[in-house]
């Protein structure tokens, strides 16, 4: 407890983590600009985000969940279920796509409520609960489509959400901006976000301060489910079809983005800005790798291995960023110690 000035150092540390991520993103851009084909072309930059915005959405709402010290593995499966129900409503029951979108988002919230109930009222561990619903939601989606059916042929107006540009940017990016603003406000500017932090650091401590651990934690899972429903709708609009197998593995990429962004997996500390940077770093990596088809590595065409390579490099990126974070932290404390040795004029009261 011998940190002389705490608040500035904390922000400095956070800033440092985010600086690391910015540096990583910059390196990625330089690398792919040299290796890849038309990487920085306007159309490709649009593509990077058009093709990954769903992961960004999941990462945003995964952040409050992880802040409480929890996790939600069911979000990718939730997307599959919401996508199928959306397709079913529009194609089988002639519901307008926009109304069906509202239904999909509500279904997501409802599924999140199920997670929340099991976690906060039945006191089951989030990892186990969402591992269960991870299988359950996907299984329901497959049952509804009998395993193979896909819904397509949606009206063009709806498909524009996934493919058109609005004011020069992909339409879904505007939705993403709105959700980012919403989640940022919720996490960093409201009593709810503050409560999540307290719960993440010390659930019993929060309870003794009169914070409703159940309600606040539950809200995080409900929000996550609802936005997973929204992500499903956007994905269907981009792909033009609704299948049971959409969004597989998205929850893991979202968790990677959140942790890469400096949010503690144990809960308590974290930020939406970090999550955004983590998401961008992953999105660029995946897109960039698919662009280096023109080049050859070890005399092998890369295109065939881009997928495998991207998985490997995403993992490496996460581990390296975490290691760099730990390294920077220890450097910072060492420097702080050295500085405080130099300036011994202002001794601290507590030991």
């Amino acid at each position, binding site marked *: 407890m011998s940190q002389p*000035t705490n608040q500035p150092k904390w922000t400095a540390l956070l800033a440092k983590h985010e600086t690391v991520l910015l540096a990583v993103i910059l390196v990625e851009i330089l690398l792919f600009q040299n290796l890849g084909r038309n990487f920085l072309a306007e159309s490709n930059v649009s593509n990077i985000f058009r093709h990954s915005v769903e992961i960004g959405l999941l990462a945003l709402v995964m952040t409050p969940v992880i802040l409480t010290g929890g996790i939600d593995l069911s979000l990718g499966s939730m997307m599959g279920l919401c996508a199928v129900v959306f397709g079913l409503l529009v194609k089988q029951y002639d519901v307008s796509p926009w109304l069906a979108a509202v239904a999909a988002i509500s279904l997501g919230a409802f599924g999140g409520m199920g997670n929340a109930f099991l976690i906060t009222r039945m006191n089951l561990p989030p990892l186990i609960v969402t591992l269960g619903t991870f299988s359950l939601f996907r299984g329901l989606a497959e049952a509804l489509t009998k395993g193979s059916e896909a819904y397509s042929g949606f009206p063009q107006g709806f498909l524009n959400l996934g493919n058109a540009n609005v004011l020069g940017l992909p339409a879904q990016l505007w939705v993403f901006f709105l959700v980012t603003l919403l989640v940022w406000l919720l996490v960093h500017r409201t009593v709810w976000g503050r409560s999540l932090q307290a719960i993440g650091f010390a659930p019993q401590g929060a*309870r003794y301060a009169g914070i409703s651990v159940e309600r606040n934690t539950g809200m995080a899972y409900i929000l996550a489910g609802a936005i997973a429903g929204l992500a499903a709708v956007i994905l269907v609009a981009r792909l033009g079809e609704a299948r049971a197998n959409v969004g597989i593995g998205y929850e893991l990429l979202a968790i990677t983005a959140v942790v890469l962004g400096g949010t503690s997996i144990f809960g308590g500390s974290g930020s939406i800005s970090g999550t955004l940077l983590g998401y961008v770093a992953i999105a660029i990596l995946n897109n960039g790798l698919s662009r280096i088809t023109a080049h050859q590595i070890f005399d092998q065409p890369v295109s065939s291995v881009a997928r495998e390579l991207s998985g490997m490099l995403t993992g490496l990126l996460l581990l390296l960023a975490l290691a760099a974070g730990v390294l920077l932290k220890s450097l910072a404390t060492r420097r702080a110690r050295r500085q405080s040795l130099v300036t011994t004029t202002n*001794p601290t009261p507590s*030991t």
Partner: protein
Amino acid sequence: MSDVEKLLELSEIKKSFGAVRALKGVSFELKAGEVHALLGENGAGKSTLIKVITGAHAPDSGTLTVAGQAVAALTPSKAQEWGIACIYQQPALFPDLSVSENIGLRLKKSAAFAKVDWGKQREVAAKLLERIGAEISPDAEVASLSMPEQQLVEIACALGSGARIVIMDEPTASLTQKEQHLLYAVVRDLRDSGVGVVYISHRLEEIFALADRVTVLRDGESVGTHPVGSLTEAQMIQLMVGREVSAIYPPAESAPGDVVLEMQSVSCAASGIADVSLTVRAGEILGMAGLVGAGRTELARILFGITPASSGSIRLEGKTISIGNPQDAIAQGIAYVPEDRRKHGVILDLPIAHNITMAIHRRIFPQHFLLKQAEQNLAVEMIRDLGIKAFGPEAPGGSLSGGNQQKVSVARWLATKPRLLILDEPTQGVDVGAKSEIHKIIRRLAKDGLAVLMISSDLPEVLGMSDRVAVMRGGRLVAMVDGKKAEAASIMAAALGHSHSDSEKGQEGTR
């Protein structure tokens, strides 16, 4: 005692952590067969000094002599070889292993895959436990033992490793009076067998009862070593704080007003509280005495809605209320400063300001959006009002000393503007200076018309602060005494239950 062997001698020990000079030149000696108390406020350097003796910290300068030999670089394992053992406030045992396994693990350093001789291990453990007079089965799982029993196991470990220097860091902080006396007997036995005991405690009466000599630390310096008999309590406190402490307990200044809390035959099956009826008036401090486990904290938890009552009625200012969770309690104007400050009282990772507003989120942030300026203002005001020593409202709770953390916990509840304030062991593990400040704060609050229910295992505190004293035993209220007439002996007798006390009630069904 002049030619008794000196087990340990430290001279001019200095140790700094960055800018903080924890030890500025401490000298200390320990003779064989003595109990040497180490006294000082929190932050005076006691913990650092212990860590130097146990080899956890290397001193920057100064000399350390063990059994007449100068020791240059002491490490924890070397300290163990030299016969130095330390028993901490919180026993560091493996809860899922048996007593004999724990003792066996501590005693011998065997190869990783060596065969364990279970029979011999058990025998050794049994012998050690017998030697200190502990009635503990070597086969008992440590998790099933009470705190004092675990401490006895620690002592057995220390003895078994052949320790000649035993350091005890506030060993009685979580013990009941009876258990304390058991421990005292063990300490005296150790002393009589030639072991030197370094004894750290905040309780002065304990030092008088047990220690031969006392060394007082203040601000990282040793300000003197004295035979215990040559000092009065007031002199000791003065040595510790370096200033005159006029009266230890501030006098009562107010006459109790209207009844604020009225409990009628309140029971809670889950937490073992049965048929408790009591009242607390505005401006009154109701002290609550009893042994650890008598149900005092459980009663507080009922009032705060953590374990709601199963029967009986609770009235607040004449209105019957039901308290199903802490939010209900807060809404009704009930505040609870919990016993476990680090786990429940303050969130150590969060800034002071966040901690202070935590129970009034709805009131201070009515639109659900954080208002940083309002929060800062409140925190600054509380820091000033309660004299919290901190770098500022943004300093994390964990950076404060125990006493200041406790003040933050109190500040959080004052911010709720409560009608009833429940304090659970408000000064446990708090240094003498902060303790008297907290007492003054409690008095001031009572004077301002707050009803105060103060749970405390510190009998002098209960006697010094309370307008009335309630005594609990086995989940029941067994005595209610006027504060002015209360005597330590009769309260203790009621708490223990084998008493001549005629104010006792509800004997039947006491478990």
